């Protein structure tokens, strides 16, 4: 049954069928990765039942939240057939800015706007160069990755920004009801992103220009404009991730984030994003992030050495993609 559906899954396509919540998030493309996630959890639990203790699960989701946000960010870009190697350092840059704003006691609205603006500008930089010059996104963002990281260090003078007023931490890293705020934020991003992709022109056009750029152009879609938008969204989401991180650590380290890039891309692709463009799933990206977090948590939980953790994570990334393949076929 599911198998059958999976066979004719597609990013937007189903949108035209009668509406349903399931369809908003998923078209079964995520089955492979979900399976991988469940498997992983089972394995760890089998080794140490403690692992499944309710808290630990919440804990893992919490740890996944920022990676998940970045994974969704890069998914927006991957759907257009591009890639954004700069989200990691864009996060660092926004984090430093937001840290400075917070520590200098600006009110929340200013902090939020300032941080988002920083991210948006970073994205605008990428988007503009890519659309105007026609250089491959891979290389443009490779360059801007280095630029943003440099800027982050310059802005912060290479110092970790500390002295974040506790109210920010409480707000950004506290709890809403029983649920930790970062999880709530990640969830909101998931819903909004899914809605954008499934129910708006923007989402439709991103898929179109990722799937067939020239066709989109002939259909009168402003491909340049929408490509740029994708990068602005991606960096702005990185800025959201930045605020969450700063809130959680109570400090803004200019070296933050760089190491989140590859996990985020891995999560997005494991979640079904097609690096050739035209396909990608926000839910999948989130689950991909969860898978990686589960691995790290589980391996740490079992006190596995750093060396072996790296090998394990690499192997799982490849296995997860294999299971995607098999499920597609």
């Amino acid at each position, binding site marked *: 049954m599911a198998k059958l559906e999976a066979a004719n899954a597609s990013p*937007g396509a189903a949108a035209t069928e009668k509406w349903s919540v399931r369809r908003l998030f998923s078209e079964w493309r995520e089955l492979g990765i979900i399976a991988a996630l469940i498997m992983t959890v089972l394995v760890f639990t089998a080794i140490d039942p403690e692992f499944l203790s309710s808290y630990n699960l919440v804990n893992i989701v919490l740890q996944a939240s920022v990676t998940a946000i970045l994974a969704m960010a890069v998914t927006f870009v991957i759907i257009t057939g591009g890639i954004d190697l700069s989200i990691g350092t864009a996060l660092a840059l926004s984090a430093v800015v937001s840290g400075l704003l917070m520590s200098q006691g600006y009110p929340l609205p200013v902090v939020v706007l300032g941080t988002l603006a920083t991210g948006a500008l970073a994205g605008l930089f990428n988007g503009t160069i890519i659309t105007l010059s026609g250089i491959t996104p891979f290389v443009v963002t490779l360059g801007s990755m280095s630029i943003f990281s440099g800027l982050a260090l310059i802005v912060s003078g290479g110092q970790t920004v500390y002295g974040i007023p506790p109210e920010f931490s409480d707000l950004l890293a506290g709890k809403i009801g029983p649920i930790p705020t970062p999880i709530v934020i990640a969830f909101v991003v998931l819903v909004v992103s899914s809605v954008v992709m499934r*129910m708006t022109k923007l989402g439709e056009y991103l898929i179109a220009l990722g799937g*067939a750029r020239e066709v989109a152009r*002939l259909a009168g879609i402003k491909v340049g404009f929408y490509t740029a938008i994708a990068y602005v969204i991606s960096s702005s989401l990185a800025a959201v991730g930045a605020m969450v991180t700063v809130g959680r650590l109570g400090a803004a380290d200019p070296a933050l984030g760089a190491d989140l890039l590859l996990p985020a891309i891995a999560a997005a692709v494991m979640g079904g994003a097609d690096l050739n463009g035209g396909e990608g799933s926000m839910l999948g990206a989130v689950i991909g992030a969860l898978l990686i977090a589960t691995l790290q948590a589980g391996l740490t939980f079992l006190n596995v050495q750093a060396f072996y953790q790296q090998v394990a994570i690499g192997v799982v990334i490849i296995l997860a993609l294999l299971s995607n393949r098999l499920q597609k076929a």
Partner: protein
Amino acid sequence: MSASTAKPLLSLKGISKSFPGVKALQNVHLDLYPGEIHALMGENGAGKSTLLKVMFGAYSADEGAFELSGEPVSIRGPVDALHKGISMVHQELSLVPQLSAIQNIVLGWEKSVAGFIDWSAARREALAALARLDFQGNPHVPVSRLSVGQQQTVELARAIAANAKIIILDEPTASLSTKESEKLFSILRELRADGHALVYVSHRLAEVFDLADRATVLRDGQYVGTLLRGPDLNETSLVKMMVGRSLEDFAIQHEATLGAVALKVDGLARNGVFQNVSFEVRRGEIVGMAGMVGAGRTEVARCIAGADRIDAGSVSVNGKALSLSSPSDAVRAGIAFLTEDRKHQGLALRMSLAKNATLTRVPTRMGFINRTKQAADAKSALASVGARMPTTRLAGQLSGGNQQKVVLAKWLLSGCDIFIFDEPTRGIDVGAKAEIYALMRDLADKGAAILMISSDLPEVLRMSDRVLVMREGTLSGEVARAEATEERIIAFASGGNTWQS
């Protein structure tokens, strides 16, 4: 509805358009009247598509003026064109593979509220258009899952749904077979009756005589003339205007001298696409394979060429059964496969003609490529197919006809002697067609065995010594040259009667 009395809906005056190195259009005129089907004719590279794209605002003209029902206008882009009531079906399939038929039909002009697409409206409009073309496929799955024919229908639906007064069709039948073409024509006639103005490009002359009220001919980007429907709209005059000379039509009164069986296909099957296909091809003969789009002909060819996995049955060459795990096995056995999709499967567009031509047989000396020989081989092979251009040109820079010749040259050099042509003249002009027919016939006479898949019935009748017909993945019939007529073939192709030879 005599076109001449009404006043033009759209008229193009003195249109010129150049691309780097090419004057694609020079001072071209065109008047388009409501309720007419206006054929635009010309050889490959004559400038037809360019002119149409200018009309549609996809290219902006360097010089020239537009008048829309008398009013001078400028068309600022595809969207603008759509708003002004001009829509277009492009020469290359232009759909977004990942989107559904519905999404593709409304793409670019979706009704939306605050950026949210009104899907119910989209469904309504799209499904109406599809229904009108009695589209059979699933409108909700990605169009990449539809057959070529179905995809073509979706494109037309897109053009209709925008309910434009002017509909531009650039070679809509190129990937359709007679049956689908007929369906398309009846729709076009309806549209004409409703007072739409249609511009229609095709390399199949028969269609033009069948359909067009007027035919305008371009040559080398220049306006040659316009023929009204009637006595003087006939093959000789049209061809003369297009090619600039008259072609001796070769109705080949030719008796193939049959040799041994070169290719034998026995009970071949590929799950879900075709079953139990058996036939043989002898040396010296050209076996035509007709059928509707989606009948499975290409898939049969791909399996014989080792491109797809075979689920059952066998392929043997010169009596020896092959084990086909990849195309290289087929090539080694002497099977050459000239695909229907030249641009993506026939030529490496960014490589030189020399490299393309010698791809299957790179001449080496002591492990290193012998460039001099490579160039020489390519030159002679290209010459033998009547293509005389520098071997350093990039394949992507050639017109459709010449590209096909280069593909042929490649396979001549490969030393293969069993040729499978899939739609050998799709999108190729009359002049080039004639040359390619001659080459195929010449190959056969030299003892090659040829299987020719074609959706162009006149072509099948003209070339084949024997005609196989496929329907829905089975071999529905075989017709000898003597009794081969359009009617019989269509009967087999569409299931009128069934008879196994």
